[in-house]
């Protein structure tokens, strides 16, 4: 090695404060309590309290961001159980149409139609996919890619449920505040609820299914039953986004099954960082407002989604959230290679 410049290698060490507050919950110091609480408080405070300071138009963007974030979270949740969906629009569309039917034909008010549609819609999706839960990886993805397109063509061909025009003139929310706080609370509930669930024994089983389904079978657990449950839970979140969107736009129709709702959530989740729910939210809060800005360019918007999707897979396989949390928890320094 002599005569050569010494080579450097990057070393990452946990910050002292992280090591101290990791398993001893050191609440006797404000600094350490804040270190733990800070990142968790950001979304809560940000989403709930910032709303009133924005213009109605900005709030509209935040609302649509939150519904994409919900779809991204539901994608991520299904992903943790090894169910890689390429068709979140299936959830969105089914939720939307159920709400539409309940409100249009049965005159359910919004506070009834949304929960009913969320649960029944997710049940329908689970029943549709329960036969293919045995499929793994790409094969499962392909069927989820196909199903929403199938529904779209089916509605186009049979002209049921308003056909290509969809159901219009549905009930709206009383005012923007109701819709704003409804979706934000739902988002926070999903975000923190799923994080909790992930650390429970139940979440451990789901993650184990993704990593090695055969060993979970060896443990005497019924893999399909757990997968079906994961599908239902993830489905509820996606269907809720659809049900919410229906009342928000006062419309449900074929666009609910459009590729937009499949591509965008995946792009958000992957940009934010796979494997974390917070990452999906971070991704959504970057991508959706950006897409809103690009709306003026028309079709270029979808070009942008597509290229971003590819870019984040190829160039940022780790995702933003992992990067940020590493910076938060660890210090990096260069050391000489010996």
């Amino acid at each position, binding site marked *: 090695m002599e005569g050569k410049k010494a080579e450097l290698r990057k070393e990452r060490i946990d910050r002292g404060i992280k090591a101290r507050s990791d398993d001893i919950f050191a609440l006797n110091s404000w600094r350490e309590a804040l270190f733990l609480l800070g990142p968790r408080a950001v979304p809560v405070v940000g989403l709930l309290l910032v709303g009133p300071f924005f213009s109605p138009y900005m709030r509209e963007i935040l609302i649509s961001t939150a519904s994409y974030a919900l779809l991204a979270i539901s994608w991520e949740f299904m992903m943790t159980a090894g169910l*890689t969906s*390429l068709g979140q629009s299936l959830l969105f569309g089914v939720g939307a149409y159920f709400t539409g039917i309940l409100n249009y034909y049965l005159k359910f008010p919004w506070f009834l139609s949304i929960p009913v549609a969320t649960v029944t819609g997710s049940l329908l999706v689970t029943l549709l996919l329960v*036969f*293919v839960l*045995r*499929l*793994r*990886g*790409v*094969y499962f*993805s*392909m*069927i989820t890619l*196909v*199903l929403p*397109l*199938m529904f779209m*063509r*089916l509605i*186009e*061909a049979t002209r049921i449920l308003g056909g290509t025009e969809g159901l219009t003139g549905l009930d709206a929310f009383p005012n923007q505040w109701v819709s704003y706080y409804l979706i934000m609370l739902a988002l926070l509930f999903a975000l923190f609820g799923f994080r909790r669930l992930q650390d429970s024994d139940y979440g451990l089983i789901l993650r184990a299914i993704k990593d090695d*389904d*055969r060993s979970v*079978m060896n443990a005497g657990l019924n*893999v*399909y039953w757990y997968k079906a449950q994961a599908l239902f839970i993830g489905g509820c979140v996606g269907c809720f986004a659809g049900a919410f969107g229906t009342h928000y736009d006062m419309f449900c129709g074929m666009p609910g099954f459009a*590729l937009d709702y499949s*591509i965008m959530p*995946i*792009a958000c989740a*992957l940009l934010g960082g796979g494997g974390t729910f917070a990452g999906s939210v971070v991704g959504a809060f970057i991508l959706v407002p950006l897409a809103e800005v690009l709306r003026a*360019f*028309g*079709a*270029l918007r*979808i*070009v*942008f*989604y*597509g*290229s*971003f*999707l*590819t*870019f984040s*897979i*190829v160039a940022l*396989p780790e995702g933003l959230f992992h990067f940020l949390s590493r910076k938060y928890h660890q210090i990096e320094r260069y050391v000489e290679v010996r």
Partner: protein
Amino acid sequence: MGILIYGFINSAILALLAMGFNLTFGISGVANFAYGAIYIFAGFGVWILINLLGFNYWVSIGIALLASFLVGVIIFHVVIKRIKGMALSEVIATFGVGIAGMEIFRYFGFIGSKYGLPSLFSGGITVGGVTIDSQRITIGIMAVVLVIFVYFFTRYTKTGLAFRAIAQDERTALTFGINSDKVGAISMGFGSCLGAASAILILPLGNITVEGGYDVLLNALAVCIVGGLGSSVGVLVASALIGYAQTFTAFYLETHWMMLVSLIAIALILGIKPSGLFSQQKELEERV
């Protein structure tokens, strides 16, 4: 009689569409979900070369085929090579490329029904009271020729065997001196080239549209999945099955239902026998 002949032509169209996709995704296991984009890229490419740049028809076809080959190779090197082995990432990333590639044409104003390609030959013949134009006859002949070509190519040439080798066991292929990146890139280029060829053959029957690109991908996917990924016989049988089923539904119901047939075929096969009708590979890996 008409139904039988048009069913045959429709099957030939599907077989042509699926060929390139099958070569890349089925035979060498490289996901190419940008296939629809390459298809319309070739279509619009030829249109631009002929109508805007004033090239000769045959020259434009040559350029389009070459360009598609290069696009395939570039997509492989820029996108797929970096994420090789992670099947889902490959699918999602190439799908992203495909969407971007298709929608960019929409952005530049390639919308509507004014974009069509000229037929290769003019005229037609009458069989059993049904007149078939020469383009459809060419499609039928070319489909048969290309299927036979791909069949023998993947079995009796070094490159073709390498295509199959990297899908079956990449490490073993490496020990035999097969450069899997190089072979993958060639396979991707070859598949794109076949896609472009099918575009040039099929597009004179209708208009070039961006939506057509999505349908092409779905149809190719349907044929490959039903037939079984990587099986040339499967492609033939599946395109005949789906082709006739589509023609019958279009005849007895409406053309709206045609696409639905492919989609239902995918859903059914994935639900019942995910490896497809004629596939031998990967039977164990696809389900728990």
